[in-house]
């Protein structure tokens, strides 16, 4: 088992002929993901890597392939439209990798995707991977291994760091989910935690948060009140100054809200394991398996 994606996932790649899209489409295909089509307006009728059909629109692609999932690698000005296009075409899981999507765009994308009954992951996220089954996005497949740990994170490379440590210590993952670093994203920690709680394969969850907002605090409350499975947490940005955007659009301490201290306090209150350093995850998770 796993969450959100597995070997029944049939994937479209929006922006498949772009620099990032083509690179990662190949990587996903190599990993074994079922890539059923690509979308690039004006290249409809062509093939990607001589096998994957390209379409002008997502609607055409879905009609022809029956894809249930889409991953988006288009430049920021077009990303909001791409997400809504996928939702309008009936895609049920939309993963937006694009970084730099204006947050006001997301205030319209979010309710639309919801109205269409789709799940959005991202934007500005590394995607997700169910080791051994399917990879959607950019998480390096070779650092992952199948196993019992659900991983959910706001960060990309920090996640790789920790997944890498787990895998090297012989601890595999059920699904690794990057929810993204933007202030408004489609899937939050609670969505992923709820899915892991319901997933029989997952026995422990590792969660990497960062400064900004209250998503981690609400997640901690969810862990405290709704979860039976143990969760280990980490917060990046303890040394970040207030009022500055630390790379991620969402990683900003506003006034006195969204600090690492208050998030760690929430974790403590929820009885979660707390990793002070990335490497601490290995022992904390191992102790809870």
């Amino acid at each position: 088992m796993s969450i959100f994606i597995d070997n029944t996932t049939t994937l479209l790649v929006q922006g498949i002929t772009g620099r990032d899209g083509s690179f990662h489409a190949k990587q996903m295909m190599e990993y074994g993901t079922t890539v059923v089509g690509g979308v690039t307006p004006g290249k409809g009728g062509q093939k990607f890597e001589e096998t994957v059909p390209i379409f002008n629109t997502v609607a055409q692609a879905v009609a022809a392939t029956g894809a249930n999932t889409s991953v988006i690698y288009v430049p920021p000005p077009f990303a909001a439209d791409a997400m809504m296009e996928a939702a309008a075409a009936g895609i049920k899981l939309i993963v937006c990798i694009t970084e730099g999507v204006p947050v006001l765009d997301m205030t319209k994308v979010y309710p639309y995707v919801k109205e269409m009954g789709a799940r959005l992951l991202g934007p500005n996220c590394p995607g997700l991977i169910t080791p051994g089954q399917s990879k959607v996005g950019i998480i390096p497949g070779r650092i992952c291994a199948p196993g019992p740990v659900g991983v959910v994170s706001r960060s990309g490379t920090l996640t790789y760091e920790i997944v890498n440590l787990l895998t090297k210590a012989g601890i595999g993952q059920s699904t690794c989910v990057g929810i993204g670093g933007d202030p408004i994203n489609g899937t939050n920690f609670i969505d992923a935690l709820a899915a892991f709680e319901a997933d029989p394969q997952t026995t422990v969850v590792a969660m990497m948060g960062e400064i900004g907002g209250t998503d981690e605090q609400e997640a901690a409350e969810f862990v405290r009140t709704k979860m039976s499975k143990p969760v280990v947490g980490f917060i990046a940005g303890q040394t970040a100054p207030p009022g500055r955007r630390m790379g991620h659009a969402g990683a900003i301490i506003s006034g006195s809200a969204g600090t690492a201290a208050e998030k760690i306090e929430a974790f403590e209150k929820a009885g979660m394991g707390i990793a002070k350093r990335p490497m601490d995850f290995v022992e904390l998770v191992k102790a809870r398996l």
Partner: protein
Amino acid sequence: MNLHEYQAKEILRRHGVPIPDGDIATTPDAAEALAVKYGVPVMVKAQVHVGGRGKAGGVKYCATPAAAKEKATAILGMDIKGLTVLKVLVTVAEDIGSEAYVGIIVDRATKKPVFMVSAAGGIDIEEVAATTPEKIKYHPVDPRYGLRTFEAMEMGFFLYEDVKQARAAAKIMQQLYSAFIESGCSLAEINPLVVTPTGTVVAVDGKMVIDDNELDRLPAIEALRDESSEEASEVEARKANLTFIKLDGNVGCVVNGAGLAMATMDLVKYYGGDPANFLDIGGSSNPEKVVNALRIITADKNVKAILFNIFGGITRTDDVANGIVTATKANPLTVPIVIRLTGTNEEVAMKILTENGFSASSDMDEAVQKAVALATGAAA
């Protein structure tokens, strides 16, 4: 990106918000001339991207043009929290009957633009929120419908009993909302929104923060950027497409990915060091970026050791290695460097570094400890 008060007011004025006349001056004589042009009394207000200008003496009431010249002389060139005042806004001073607060932010929890309004204006809204939260009304706006009149009127009546004032405030809120949306703001506020003794509602101060992600499609807003009010190294980093924030520590950090960059800084602190900066070279691993990153970091004289922490996913670690070699050949380092590389093309990267006299590890924790030791040792 922060706008100056005068820039925000100009945008609000274009959206119809009633704003007292005013203009910018860079010399005391110009300030005096503006006081004559608009008529005294005027306010002379320092234009710097920092809160607490008033307490620092950067905002002055002037009853005569001569006073405007005198106060402008004092304020221009003044240092406020490390920033030099290069411009003042000279603006008609309104008689103030009451002061309210009206602001909009993009709220993460509701995923919508949210209005905050309070009859307790003229002071920091965070202070009101902390001490008398009941004095603030929050109102999320559904961006699919915009701010409708009835919503604006509900807020207008929260601020004012008088229906004319409530209507005037409601109209201003709709104008503020349209300015907020069209300018790509993450925050827009009017503080104070003033009712004059004759009952007119005017915006006496204005603030706007632009979502950096909007700037590419809003060139007219991008053109308002005032680089003279930003940290020089951060301006340089932005031009090199690096995400960089200067801090006060001694360990210069070069990392790929924002989360890993923060975690690296935290680990530096954990082991007793102090990060000199946040620096994310991003996903694409162009050697040129590494060269620029090293130039910016080594320009900071506080930096006593440099730490690279690269987890190669999209980033090719051999590109990073090549960047290090190129940069240090052109400008030999005067401080020690610790390199941690793992992931994509790790073997090639290690070979490049070794051949050029660098050592590197693949363990983050070990590398951070080493960098801290070097920085601390060098500082001792």
